[in-house]
């Protein structure tokens, strides 16, 4: 596989990884207020993504993949909401350990990385095009 096609493949894997990251961020954001449904229940637990680089045997390129989707083990914040179904005997409800600001920052980062990978794809595609153009008679 020639080098330019390999770089397309690598950038495509980057797009996939960043998309997955965005998906997890939106899941976290959507569930930022999701509490449990019985007294003392655990709420939604924040998910995190970790990437690993994968050496592609055929092309020799370093692709990227989602290694694992983990759970954030930090403590659930407590809030006094005695009327909530999930309130314990003292009236406290466990809220998801999702920090909206952090998730928004992560989303911006993921978008930027996605764009950068897209740039690489565009450039590789243009370089291939230029090479083929050499043959065309003016």
């Amino acid at each position: 596989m020639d080098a330019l096609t390999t770089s397309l493949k690598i950038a495509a894997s980057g797009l996939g990884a960043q998309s997955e990251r965005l998906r997890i961020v939106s899941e976290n954001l959507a569930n930022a207020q999701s509490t449990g449904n019985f007294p003392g229940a655990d709420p939604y637990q924040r998910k995190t993504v970790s990437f690993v680089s994968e050496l592609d045997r055929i092309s020799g390129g370093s692709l990227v993949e989602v290694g694992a989707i983990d759970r954030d083990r930090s403590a659930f914040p407590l809030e006094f909401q005695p009327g909530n179904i999930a309130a314990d005997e003292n009236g406290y409800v466990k809220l998801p350990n999702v920090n909206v600001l952090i998730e928004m920052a992560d989303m911006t980062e993921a978008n930027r990385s996605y764009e950068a990978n897209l740039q690489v794809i565009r450039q590789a595609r243009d370089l291939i095009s230029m090479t083929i153009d050499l043959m065309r008679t003016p």
Partner: protein
Amino acid sequence: MEPVNLFDLATRQSQWLGVRQTAIAGNVANANTPGYLAHDVEPFEKVLERTAVSLTATQEGHLGFSASEAGFRTRAQEFDGAPMPSKNTVVMETELMKAGEVRRAFELNTAIVKAFHGMLLAVSKG
């Protein structure tokens, strides 16, 4: 000794640029991968010096280049920026700048080849 033929040199450079593009793609894709070290290909001058050495070892009179004869070496780059807790050394701005360099060099390369190819055709036309 280096490639004496313009077209051979241009082919060699475009192969090198392709490998560099691949290294940049790997860096951009792995910008968030923990422990990943940014890679780059060795400079083109080094490649020319190196192949000059290996050329004399092969048969005399064999002046062509093939991608298999002298592969381009990629190496993890030295990093002198702020160390990240994830040990990742990719700096996106540097990668995008390198990508721009690759593009400019590639455009010049194909333009030169096209121009001289055109001249050859014009001269050979009956």
